[in-house]
């Protein structure tokens, strides 16, 4: 056959197994998107999983261990969903490099589990050609067999096994049916495949014809169209009801992260305060207690408070994604998002950013197009996140008297708040436009969105997702944020004067505040605000506590004392400038850390931080000038 040079080559490739007897066997799980690959991975590994990124790229590395009957363990790697092995996208590059054994610091897998959707075999079988050509022991799992049978389809797995020279089994990972041969394969792996023929891999129409011929020989009967999916789509993509339901879903997600998460967040806050007090009572009243309680506990606690919100958000995203609605939502939102150069899949992440940019950045994983994903990550922190609210509330309450604007419906303060939301929104979309028409102009990859059939989300998969996100978030809180909290405590408490903690203006933080004062004076800020800006690099709302400490007032956004102190110390121009500064600046190390993690390098977080800070400075400068001139 035309592709026989490929098979010959495949035989020559080194079969990695047993090269290192100490290492457990590594098996790669490969498959197209929506083939149920991750479901199988979860089924085989359970909770024994670890998620990280491949070095230097945004692609997630999912590793796990499966315990075999004989007590041994095998390592599994869940590769990103791919349509082919020709490396054109970052996902395909990673899959290709891992399977070819050229991924740095990553062993070549000893065997491959290829997962295909049995209800969509015509197209999915094409991927078998490049995978079998690798020459690694391969088992092909035709997943969703229950769905295939239910919808009247069938296929002769025996015949495919013969034609492909590799074991082919029908299974349902979601229902845990037919997985016995898969477990046996994990134990034994078997020999390299010996397919009857393989097509030339570069020729897609020929691969397509090859796959069709395989299917014909195996008496593949495609299933009837999914009736329920068609019925649901006729409502959910209805010209009128579609957008209405879409808006309802958006409102529910928004409401959940704003209101329903509130009691949980209060609970976490209470728990942190209570445990902090308890820990404090265990340590003698020295600098150690202050470091532990005021530094570590309060610092890490101020970030942990967002955990319920983040989990709730991911619960909703998980339900939307697993059920198949996310693809429909992206379809509906696409035209609007396209106006600024983004696409439908950017919508949910940007919506999430109203709660917190961290989950928003994580949620961009559903965007396959790398440039669109980076652009979404870069603009997400402009959305008005929950951490900005305490700052906005304090400044607005201090400087803006409450007067009705639209009768009893809208007061001046609410109007100012809405204005700040609009400001962030405009900055995000203007930035997206600029990015997408310059450095992140889309490659020629067209917008392609697969509409998977609707499925019922399973509790196990939702639970695993939440666990994953919680782990990522907590690991960060325990490392970067912990370190930053300690640093901030130190600069606020040193150098000691006569063996005592200095007043804040003479601490390192105060010195830093005075050092940056010349830079921020044009914005109408004094050194005290400067200290606040520095400490709020940890998280925006920290400035409220800092200002409280500096002015010696109760650090509460509603505190009248702090409001009065600010009013007498800051001009109206400076106050507006401060609001504008916080609307634009990337004052959040959690976001910086997560962008670093998700984009795989320091380049993007640095670009983003510089851009947002510059914009914040310029915006605040203008605001200060304009307000001062008007007043």
């Amino acid at each position, binding site marked *: 056959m035309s592709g026989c040079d490929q098979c010959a080559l495949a035989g020559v490739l080194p079969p990695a197994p047993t090269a290192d007897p100490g290492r457990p066997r590594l098996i790669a799980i490969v498959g197209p998107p929506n083939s149920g690959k991750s479901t199988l991975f979860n089924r085989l590994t359970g909770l024994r999983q670890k998620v990280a990124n491949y070095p230097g790229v945004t692609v997630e590395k999912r590793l796990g261990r499966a315990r075999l009957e004989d007590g041994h363990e095998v390592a599994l790697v869940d590769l990103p969903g791919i349509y082919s092995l020709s490396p054109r996208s970052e996902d395909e590059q990673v899959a290709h490099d891992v399977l070819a054994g050229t991924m740095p610091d990553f062993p070549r897998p000893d065997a491959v589990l290829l997962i295909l959707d049995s209800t969509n075999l015509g197209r999915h079988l094409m991927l078998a050609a490049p995978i079998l050509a690798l020459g690694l022991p391969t088992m092909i799992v035709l997943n969703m067999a229950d769905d295939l049978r239910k919808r009247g389809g069938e296929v002769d797995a025996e015949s495919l096994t013969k034609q492909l020279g590799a074991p082919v089994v029908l299974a349902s990972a979601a229902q845990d049916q037919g997985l016995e041969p898969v477990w046996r394969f994990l134990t034994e792996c078997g020999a390299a495949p010996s397919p009857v023929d393989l097509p030339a891999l570069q020729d897609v129409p020929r691969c397509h014809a090859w796959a069709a011929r395989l299917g014909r020989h195996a008496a593949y009967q495609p299933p009837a169209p999914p009736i329920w999916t068609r019925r649901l789509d006729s409502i959910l993509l209805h010209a009128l009801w579609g957008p209405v339901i879409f808006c309802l879903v958006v409102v529910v997600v928004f409401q959940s992260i704003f209101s329903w998460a509130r009691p949980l967040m209060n609970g976490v806050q209470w728990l942190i305060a209570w445990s902090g007090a308890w820990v404090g009572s265990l340590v003698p009243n020295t600098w150690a207690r202050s470091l532990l309680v005021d530094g570590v506990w309060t610092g890490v606690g101020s970030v942990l408070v967002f955990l319920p919100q983040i989990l709730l958000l991911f619960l909703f995203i998980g339900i939307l994604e697993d059920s198949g609605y996310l693809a429909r939502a992206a379809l509906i939102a696409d035209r609007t998002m396209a106006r600024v150069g983004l696409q439908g899949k950017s919508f949910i992440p940007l919506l999430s950013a109203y709660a917190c940019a961290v989950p928003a950045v994580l949620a961009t994983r559903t965007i396959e197009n790398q440039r669109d994903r980076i652009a979404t990550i870069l603009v997400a922190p402009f959305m008005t996140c929950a951490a900005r609210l305490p700052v906005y509330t304090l400044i607005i309450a201090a400087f803006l008297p409450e007067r009705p604007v639209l009768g009893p419906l809208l007061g001046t303060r609410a109007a100012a708040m809405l204005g700040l939301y609009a400001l962030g929104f405009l900055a995000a979309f203007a930035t997206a436009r600029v990015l997408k028409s310059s450095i992140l102009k889309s490659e020629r990859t067209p*917008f392609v969105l697969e509409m998977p059939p609707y499925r019922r989300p399973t509790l196990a998969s939702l639970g695993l997702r939440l666990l994953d996100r919680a782990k990522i978030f907590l690991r960060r809180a325990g490392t970067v944020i912990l370190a930053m909290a300690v640093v901030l405590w130190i600069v606020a408490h040193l150098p000691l004067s006569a063996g005592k903690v200095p007043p804040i203006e003479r601490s390192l933080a105060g010195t830093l505040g005075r050092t940056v004062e010349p830079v921020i004076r044009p914005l109408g800020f004094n050194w005290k605000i400067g200290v606040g800006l520095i400490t709020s690099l940890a998280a925006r709302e920290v400035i409220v506590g800092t200002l409280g400490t500096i002015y010696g007032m109760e650090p509460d956004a509603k505190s009248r004392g702090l409001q009065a102190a600010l009013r007498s110390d800051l001009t109206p121009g400076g106050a507006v400038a401060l609001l504008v500064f916080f609307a634009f600046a990337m004052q959040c190390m959690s976001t910086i850390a997560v962008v670093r993690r998700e984009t795989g390098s320091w380049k993007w977080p640095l670009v983003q931080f510089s851009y947002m800070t510059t914009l914040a400075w310029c915006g605040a400068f203008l605001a200060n000038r304009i307000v001062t001139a008007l007043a």
Partner: protein
Amino acid sequence: MQANVIRRRAPASLAELRKGEQGILDRLDLPEDVSRRLMELGFVPGSPVVAALSAPGGDPRVFRVDGSEIALRHDTAVRLKLRPAASAAAN
């Protein structure tokens, strides 16, 4: 014959298909890497494609091909050319 006169011009690309209408894909008028990607998704010349639902406003639109449903934007759909009606009917 009469029916032919009344009938509109045969759809030349996926973008011109009406909802529920089928056409036979003839060629992909796109750069090679892009058309390869679309072919991997099932848009192979000679395949029947059916236009299905769309987003409000008609763009993007869902197409049924090779057992799956895939949404494309209008600017991509116009580049996927259909076989002339006569040969499509012959199929």
